[in-house]
């Protein structure tokens, strides 16, 4: 009984974390190349709407998912063009796009509000889902959830193990060195920003077609900002970013369990809905404040270095800066 409950909870955390995982992995990829896609919150909303609208109209979930990915990729393409070719401030463009996408999602999504529609079908992976404990947690979901798990693995393998991945790191780290080695910096940045954007679009689709079915006003409630913060918290490394996502999911689940507990009935629900954002601030403080530096300085150098590496990551050296060749 106890284990059942635990397995069930963990399984629902894995499912619920899908959009955050996809979005933060997507963002990790584009930030690794040096481009900040700040539009996440808007991108997710617009692609969630588009995904649902297309699936609803055509009756095909696959088309819906593809449409959502295209929307996310297109928004990322605007960011890439504005920041790489037109050298505008990435943060400014991203912020304006966030607002634009939010309103666009509301406007275009109006006819689809609170309509029941299709969703991604539940599909336990044969054999794998029958593994005790691990099976139900990881392999008893739908395809989009599996894609989120796969995205972590694939991003890690691609970035750290392959030649294009090494170049991707180089482009974000020190574009002038990458250029010196024959890497086309602008093209890399374009490609990976758009690829990251497509994953963000998939995150949107997972929202409206798998997690919180359908579409309504402010449907995705701030999840993009959380994902952006988790990328920083996870130090731009796919594994740690993913760990951040599941930790966040775990805390959220604990929150809702507490909320249902009669002992906490007196705690107003608003505390629970603001809590993730307070948590976001706290988590960012944990990985970047100087107080941590001072604590580390008290420890033996080697240990301090190891802890430092484990809990924090340095942003790619060229993050947010335009690259001017020559």
């Amino acid at each position: 009984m106890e284990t059942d409950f635990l397995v069930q909870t963990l399984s629902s955390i894995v499912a619920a974390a899908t959009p955050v995982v996809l979005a933060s992995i997507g963002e990790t990829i584009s930030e690794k190349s040096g481009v900040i896609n700040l539009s996440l919150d808007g991108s997710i909303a617009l692609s969630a709407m588009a995904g649902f609208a297309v699936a609803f109209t055509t009756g095909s979930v696959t088309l819906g998912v593809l449409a959502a990915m295209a929307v996310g990729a297109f928004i990322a393409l605007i960011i890439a063009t504005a920041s790489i070719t037109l050298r505008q401030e990435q943060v400014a463009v991203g912020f304006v796009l966030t607002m634009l996408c939010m309103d666009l999602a509301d406007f275009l999504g109006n006819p689809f509000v609170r309509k029941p529609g299709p969703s991604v079908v539940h599909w336990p992976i044969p054999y794998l889902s029958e593994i005790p404990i691990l099976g139900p947690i990881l392999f008893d979901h739908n395809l989009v959830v599996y894609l989120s798990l796969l995205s972590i693995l694939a991003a890690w393998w691609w970035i750290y193990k392959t030649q294009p991945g090494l170049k991707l790191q180089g482009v974000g780290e020190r574009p002038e060195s990458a250029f010196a080695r024959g890497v086309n910096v602008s093209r890399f940045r374009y490609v990976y920003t758009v690829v990251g954007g497509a994953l963000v679009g998939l995150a949107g689709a997972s929202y409206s077609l798998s997690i919180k079915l359908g579409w309504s006003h402010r449907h995705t409630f701030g999840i993009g900002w959380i994902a952006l913060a988790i990328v920083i918290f996870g130090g731009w490394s796919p594994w740690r970013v993913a760990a951040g996502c599941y930790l966040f999911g775990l805390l959220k689940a604990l929150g809702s369990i507490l909320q249902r507990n009669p002992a906490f009935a007196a705690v107003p629900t608003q505390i629970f809905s603001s809590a993730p954002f307070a948590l976001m601030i706290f988590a960012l403080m944990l990985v970047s404040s100087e107080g941590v530096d001072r604590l580390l300085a008290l420890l033996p150098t080697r240990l301090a270095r190891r802890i430092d590496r484990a809990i924090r990551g340095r942003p790619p050296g060229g993050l947010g800066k335009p690259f001017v060749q020559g």
Partner: protein
Amino acid sequence: MKGILRLKNVLLGLAPVVLALLFTTLILVAVGAPPVEAYRNILSGAFESWQKIADVVAACVLLILCGVGMSITFTAGQWNVGVEGQIVLGAIFATWVARNLLWPQVPVLTLMLLAGMLGGALWGALAGLLKVYGKVHEIFGGLGLNYVAQGLAIWLIFNPWKPADGATMSGTDPFPDPAWMPRLGDLRVAPLAVILALLSAAVVYFLLRGTRWGLELKAMGKNFRSAFLLGVPSTPRLLTAFAACGALAGLAGAIRCSARYGRMLPDISGGQGYLSLLVALLAGYRPQWVPLIALFFAAVGVGSPRLELNMQLDSSLGGVLRASVVLAVMLVGGWRALMARRQETT
């Protein structure tokens, strides 16, 4: 020749607006709505009567106050995304005064406005403190605090400030009469609020141009490390910039609940803080441009609910129009710079 050049500049200046209109027109065509009628609805919705014009002016007040405030933080190189929450805190502080101090109008209103400024300033300074001491980027700090402020407002309305007939999303009981800011006859606009907004634009313009404080903020915004080594006390300057912007946003919050609703609402800011960020971005951080842009934004905002009424379209089209104007300004600006660079190299 000179005339042609000037004409070209005017045309290029208008290009973003044309592009944005083109974009929204495309969207309207895509959903099968007649574009011209939609724009006519927005226009008439904003200007058809004195009452509507008054509404536009009233909406302007908030955008001016926050936009001007944000030109301070932008000058200091900070993205004070937290204005939304600073508006809410201003409203909360003002509401506390309105509910607890049953005094005559002049002292109560004065105190409400001051309390609002205090609330906003504290919330702004908190984002600054998180940035300086917690190294949390102000975008995340500010956004987080926005949601926390929102939660706080809802909690207050649903618990200690619950109306006698039960809490709803329509807010607290109306304020006692002295806490209502006097309006211009039947029109929903408070002259005092308009004066305060324009005054704030003038004052901030002067502060940024003529004072040491303004110069130091500018230096910090352009190069934080250099400014520090040149002796600019960066931490106090940063905190005062956040607090000043917060104070203006808090003032806006106080005005909103006192002049517009006469009560505290859960959604008192209604996304106006984010909107004013667009105003400030479009103004290019120059406070003197804020009122004009705010007027355009406010008109679109007041006019677009007409779309829902007459055409069964969502009013967020107004938001699409506003944001796409800002985006188009950036893209066209970048494109012109690109062309200039290309010309230079050939």
